[in-house]
């Protein structure tokens, strides 16, 4: 029971991070129907941006307040990563709209390879450790010498995820941009006829996806304290799995899928074997796509001839 609760906490933390990345996949898929393969690497890039911003703040500007440093890093990382998301869409995906169906996916694979090697070239291939930003926590209960521990980091991750998701949900459901976005998702041509700037909406979707990936990046960096140029691929695939599992195109589905994947991963590591935890994630991806392609909350796809 104690182990179970502890793993539940760990799983929910990890799942929050996956959920944030998964939103980027699910929104882009919803609006232009492509798997943004480079999204995992955008997430990795944001980790590096956060790392450098954090180092500038603490070593050069001498900011000692953790809350202030965290907020500044979060905002800086979101802005700069959003710029990357915008630029990538502009350069690598927009010219391909209307091209044959696999072109954007192949281009995205190219962007993914480019980004991870770009970071390797400019930042070096070594693991980059960060000093712990936030330590300590609360012992929830203790029994037979096994303490169930909820660290402040985990609290912060879950709180930030919850706040951002609420804000994001509001943005998509209640604002003009959100309406435009959902309209483009349903029928791009019709939306354009009704006066929606489709290109701008798609750009904004990429910008938002990248910004949320940046939040995930900051949280990931804070949680694990280390990042390397190759850290984009596996979290990226897991987040994509989360998006598919929850039903691709559905925002609550992405978060739900993220939480499920996070829980499965931690429980699998705790009760079965840690070596095969990635195999578990990849198997879930394959099984979901084969037997339940529309996911838990997704709408089944209707094929029009």
């Amino acid at each position, binding site marked *: 029971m104690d182990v179970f609760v502890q793993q539940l906490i760990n799983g929910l933390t990890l799942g929050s991070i996956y959920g944030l990345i998964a939103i980027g996949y699910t929104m882009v898929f919803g609006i232009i129907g492509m798997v943004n393969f480079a999204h995992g690497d955008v997430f990795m890039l944001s980790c590096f941006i956060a790392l450098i911003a954090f180092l500038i703040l603490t070593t050069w500007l001498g900011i000692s307040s953790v809350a202030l440093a965290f907020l500044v890093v979060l905002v800086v990382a979101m802005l700069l990563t959003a710029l990357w998301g915008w*630029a990538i869409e502009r350069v690598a995906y927009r010219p391909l709209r209307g091209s044959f*169906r*696999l072109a954007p996916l*192949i281009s995205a694979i*190219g962007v993914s390879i480019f980004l991870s090697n770009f970071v390797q070239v400019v930042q070096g291939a070594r693991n980059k450790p960060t000093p712990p930003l936030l330590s300590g926590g609360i012992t929830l209960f203790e029994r037979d010498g096994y303490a169930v521990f909820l660290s402040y980091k985990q609290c912060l991750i879950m709180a930030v995820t919850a706040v951002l998701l609420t804000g994001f949900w509001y943005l998509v459901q209640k604002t003009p941009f959100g309406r435009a976005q959902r309209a483009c998702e349903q029928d791009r041509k019709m939306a354009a006829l009704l006066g929606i700037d489709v290109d701008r909406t798609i750009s904004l979707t990429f910008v938002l996806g990248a910004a949320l990936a940046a939040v995930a990046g900051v949280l990931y960096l804070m949680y694990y304290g280390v990042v390397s140029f190759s850290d984009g691929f596996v979290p990226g695939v897991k987040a994509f799995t989360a998006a598919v599992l929850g039903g691709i195109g559905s925002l609550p589905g992405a978060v739900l899928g993220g939480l499920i994947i996070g829980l499965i991963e931690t429980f699998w590591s705790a009760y079965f074997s840690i*070596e*095969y935890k990635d195999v578990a994630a990849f*198997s879930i991806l394959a099984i979901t796509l084969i037997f339940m392609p529309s996911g838990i909350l997704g709408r089944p796809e209707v094929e029009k001839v």
Partner: protein
Amino acid sequence: MARTTDASSANASPEGALPAILRDAALYALVAFGLCVPIVSYRTESGPGSDLVLVPRWGLVAALCAAIFVARLLQRLVLLRRDARRALTPAPDQATEAVHGEPDAGQRVSKVGLWAFLGIALTLPLVATAATGGLSSARYWIDLGILILTYVMLGWGLNIVVGLAGLLDLGYVAFYAVGAYSYALLSTTFGLSFWVCLPLAGLFAGLWGMILGFPVLRLRGDYLAIVTLAFGEIIRLVLINWGDVTGGAAGISSIPRATFFGIPFTAGEDGFAARLGIPFDSMHRVVFLYYLILVLALVTNGVTMRLRRLPIGRAWEALREDEIACRSLGIDTTATKLTAFALGAAFGGFAGSFFAVRQGFISPESFNFLESAIILAIVVLGGMGSQLGVAIAAVAMVGGPELLRNLGFLKAVFGEGFDPSEYRLLLFGLAMVTMMVWRPRGLISVRVPSVALGRRRAISGAHVSEGHG
């Protein structure tokens, strides 16, 4: 890189458009500056202790932004002139008279290129020996040839799946791994020779292709791609973790070498050299491996070209163009896809067992996702479905980085610490994106129908619209 040109600038005279172009280039440079901060401008280095220290590199950022500015400026100027020229000649679809477009040119290139390639491939060991003045000094070139031909073969194998049947397979390297491990395990545990294992490896890989393919081939394009990616990763992770059988991450070493149909390449009495009565040279084996992979690649090509003319091959191509139409016409899409998948996998398996026999050592790290991406890039850049295009792309993608390594003057320009091979994958990714934006149909995008009534007329890939399967 973006091809979007404003309609207004196309019509304006070059002089009048200059301020706009300058502004546009400046905007590009500004965005580049934003992208460089802080990921390029500060490099994190390990300082004293375990802390990281930041090393500012604003000079590099300035150079990058200036490069982007100049590149965009040049691109706009070139586009401006091209658009002005284009405005004078009608586009092919507007013309009232026949306009000679790309197709004929493409066909000519194909014909000349085909024979040129075959000639170079057949004579490479001789030419390299003559040029470098000795068999052992030609080793570098022959090894490079083997490497390129391995990728040509993998590219042709994957071309059946991606180029002909239109199924995007991101886990092709899994079958390559199955082939390599089949040979390695069969030869080290049962002592079977390479010539027995080669067909077995292909068979196993094809079988795996069927096992993996059967459940997934109902899926549509990008879902299929992701599932194959997942399978590729699962196979690699199993190879790493199932240490008792596969040797784990350490891999399998001392795999028996290839023999000349049973005659080993050794210096002893019954060795290859002694039987022929020529002096022993360790290079005989390398030259033999070169011709072996050449034959394997040509067999792949031959089988593919033959199959294209058979009903099954035509069904593949039809499937690529429009799956719904295929189903309406009564083609069993699952069986058709499965044959393409299994056949591609089998050729991957052959290439894998060749890889194992050539290296003498294999480990799961040789079969990661990047390898799949490289093979896919070769197929895509070559022009999906074009055999010659794939060969050209393999030479460019595999041979190009090797050339980069030998360019000494780059060191003089960028300083002594500059290592061009570091940039290999960076350029690789960039090339994939550029290619998709510039020529989404690949280098050779012309399509010649496999079967035609009367004269065979090529059509430019740009006129082909693929259905949504």
